[in-house]
């Protein structure tokens, strides 16, 4: 088959690091080519080379038979290369249609032909099989819909080679299905797709070929039929790993958290409880109100009514500060913006919630602080040369460990984990799972929100399925089935 893109012997060095080491890679016309590897394997640098965001030190980029030496983002867009990153590139104050056609001329006049714009937007959105209102502002959309808009934007530019970086990370299973349909649809139209993902299931469902990267090198490129999940994981990490979840032997204690008739702007009255040593999974589609109920519990958003009881006693929570005092901690789904302080050191991050307790007469006891940080750094196996390293320089998995560490340091009894493994690599995921398991052994009550079906089924002792702001179903571990959860989540009652 003819290649749309060939990368030959490309090397990119940064001070102290070889990000790409004599890498060769090719994408055929109309294929879905998966690119896998742990964080730091060189995937992002490869993508940036293709989009022209960086210029390689050595090697060639050949696109549609033509060699490009000075590729830049504008040129690459003109020749039909588009990338959708994990961080979106949308103007939050503008509407869906304005974003889709941002940078693209709809007509010849200098004025915007709104009618034409609306028509075209509708057509594209229809292809995407979605019912977003083209006049809604981006900031009012959920993450999943923002991503659909990103894809629509690429389509509007007549994309020939589409790069998708972890596209399903923010999506629920239902939305993932839509995305898959879309990817197959694009493929049929001859669009080539480079698909980066940590999720093995998706890769085997979508990809034609798979390229594995590790430490800045391409380990191999294989046809999907010629490999399997375990082999791929082995290639990625360079060691054997089973993608299984740690076995759960929950020892349930007394009820630690009781939420009674809690109700807020996106939640109807919600009631549930969690016991010591228990992991309760909150399943559901994006927008089902899972994150929202978590934010109500910790007082980050205003509740309308309802009560929260900790250890059998009703508590008043008006702000996250109150929640922390009652031992409730929330690890946000948005790690970079809400979970950790990227510009601050590991030390500062971990002790932030308990700094006041570590201080005498407002003066910080640095000895105690270091002791505390070292303890949790070791307990969570945070990989870093120093506790004074900036969290922004850590890998996603280690950042997540820092986000969890600060709540363990504050001796929280109830931990709400919102998408705890989003965007982190396979090895780190395993560690997080084992960590969660250990925590329940120590008697913590855990609420786990996850959009990864396999994960939430593998980890939870009990599952609550939410839809449209309320709990629509409750399942015990024996009753877990993908089918049943999906039925509840999409609000199908039979």
């Amino acid at each position, binding site marked *: 088959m003819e290649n749309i893109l060939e990368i030959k012997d490309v090397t990119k060095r940064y001070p102290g690091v070889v*990000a790409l080491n004599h890498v060769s890679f090719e994408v055929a016309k109309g294929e879905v080519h998966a690119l896998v590897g742990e964080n730091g394997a060189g995937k992002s640098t490869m993508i*940036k080379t293709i989009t022209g965001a960086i210029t390689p030190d050595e090697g060639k980029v050949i696109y549609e038979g033509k060699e490009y030496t000075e590729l830049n983002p504008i040129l690459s867009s003109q020749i039909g290369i588009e990338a959708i990153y994990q961080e979106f590139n949308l103007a939050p104050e503008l509407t869906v249609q304005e974003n889709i056609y941002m940078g693209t001329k709809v007509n010849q006049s200098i004025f915007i032909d709104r009618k034409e714009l609306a028509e075209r937007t509708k057509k594209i959105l229809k292809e995407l099989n979605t019912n977003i209102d083209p006049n809604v502002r981006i900031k009012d959309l959920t993450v999943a819909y923002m991503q659909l808009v990103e894809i629509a934007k690429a389509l509007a530019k007549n994309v020939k080679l589409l790069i998708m970086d972890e596209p399903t990370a923010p999506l629920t299973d239902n939305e993932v299905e839509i995305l898959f349909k879309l990817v197959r649809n694009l493929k049929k139209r001859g669009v080539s797709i480079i698909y980066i993902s940590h999720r093995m299931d998706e890769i085997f469902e979508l990809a034609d070929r798979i390229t594995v990267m590790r430490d800045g090198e391409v380990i191999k490129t294989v046809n999907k039929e010629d490999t399997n999940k375990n082999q791929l994981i082995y290639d990625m990490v360079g060691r054997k790993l089973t993608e299984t979840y740690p076995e759960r032997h929950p020892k349930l204690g007394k009820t630690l958290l009781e939420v009674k008739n809690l109700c807020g702007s996106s939640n109807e009255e919600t009631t549930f409880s969690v016991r010591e040593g228990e992991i309760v999974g909150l399943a559901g589609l994006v927008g089902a109100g899972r994150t929202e109920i978590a934010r109500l519990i910790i007082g980050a958003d205003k509740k309308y009514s309802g009560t929260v009881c900790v250890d059998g006693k009703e508590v008043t929570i008006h702000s996250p500060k109150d929640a922390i005092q009652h031992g409730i901690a929330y690890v946000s789904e948005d790690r970079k913006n809400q*979970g950790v302080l990227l510009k601050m050191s590991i030390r500062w991050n971990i002790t932030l919630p308990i700094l006041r307790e570590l201080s005498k007469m407002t*003066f910080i006891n640095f000895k105690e602080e270091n002791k505390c940080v070292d303890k949790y750094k070791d307990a969570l196996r945070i990989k870093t040369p120093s506790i004074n390293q900036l969290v922004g*320089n850590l890998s996603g998995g280690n950042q997540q460990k820092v986000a969890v560490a600060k709540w363990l340091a504050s001796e929280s009894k109830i931990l709400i984990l919102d998408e705890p493994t989003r965007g982190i690599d396979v090895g780190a995921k395993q560690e997080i799972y084992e960590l969660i398991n250990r925590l329940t052994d120590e008697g913590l009550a855990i609420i786990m929100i996850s959009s990864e079906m396999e994960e939430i089924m593998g980890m939870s002792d009990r599952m609550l399925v939410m839809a449209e702001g309320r709990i629509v179903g409750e399942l015990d571990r024996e009753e877990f089935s993908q089918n049943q959860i999906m039925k509840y989540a999409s609000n199908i009652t039979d």
Partner: protein
Amino acid sequence: MDKLKSFIKQYFVLVILIVLIILFGCLRPESFLTMSNMFTVIRQSSIMGIATIGLLFVMVAGGIDLSLGSVISVESVLVAVLLTKFGWGLLPAYLCGLAGGTLVGLVTGAIIVKTGIFPMIGTLALQIILQGIAYLVCGGMPVSNLPLNAKMIGQGYIGPIPIPVIVFIIVIIIAALVLNRTYIGRHFYAIGSNEEAARLSGINTNKLKVATYAIGGFLSGLAGIIMLARISSGQPTAGKNMEMDCLTAAVIGGVSLTGGEGKISTAVCGVLIIGVLTNGMTIMNISEYYQLVIRGCIFLGAVCLDGIQKQIAGGKKVKKAA
């Protein structure tokens, strides 16, 4: 090579300061490099320095305060009027000036926190309001005939060291202790770095943001009192354009315009750089109009440098993501 680079980066501000001193020293060795002139520079820098430390608190927590010059003017004339027309004693008048500055800061902070307006716009409005109030307090005329002892804090010495310098050093020490050693200081940095993450970590972000403006107001009030004593009269325009000098000093001194970063030591270097420049340009007989242009250029340059550094830091992310 890398070592040299990181050394220069770390001591960049200090290097600029030394280069400037050498430059003026070469150009006007007979008048610039004298002991008495060096003391003059430090004494002149003290007032601006005190206000800059206040601004640093505000900026570290992610805010900005353009009203501080007007606060200096208001407190300066207020204390002058209390001392002369009302015949108050020194202590109550000074306390009133400090309280006035703090109150202005509290109000400013409360407005910004409650309404969510941009601090730059909010404090710009306050700058104008307060400038008007400064004129109203003194009826537009400078207040003179201050009692003799009121000049002490601006013109006096303890041993060989001018009192304003001593006050400045005390402020530096306390500020450094608060920022580096107390949890409150750490919380300021956290808020400026990422407010929502800080809030979710149990920090009362609104209260602390107001506190930074109050600290800024308090120190502006203090600067106003020393200014009054130094020039021996209450001028309604005493602090005019002071916010620009303070902002320039802070930005040159590595205080981030986007919050979360800023060290006392480098900020003080920034203050001294502005002090040396002002003094040097005056000694060189550069006309006031050129001085304005140069000051503006330096401010622009400092802000650009801040921006470029952020871009380079952003470029590093490319490497990290690789």
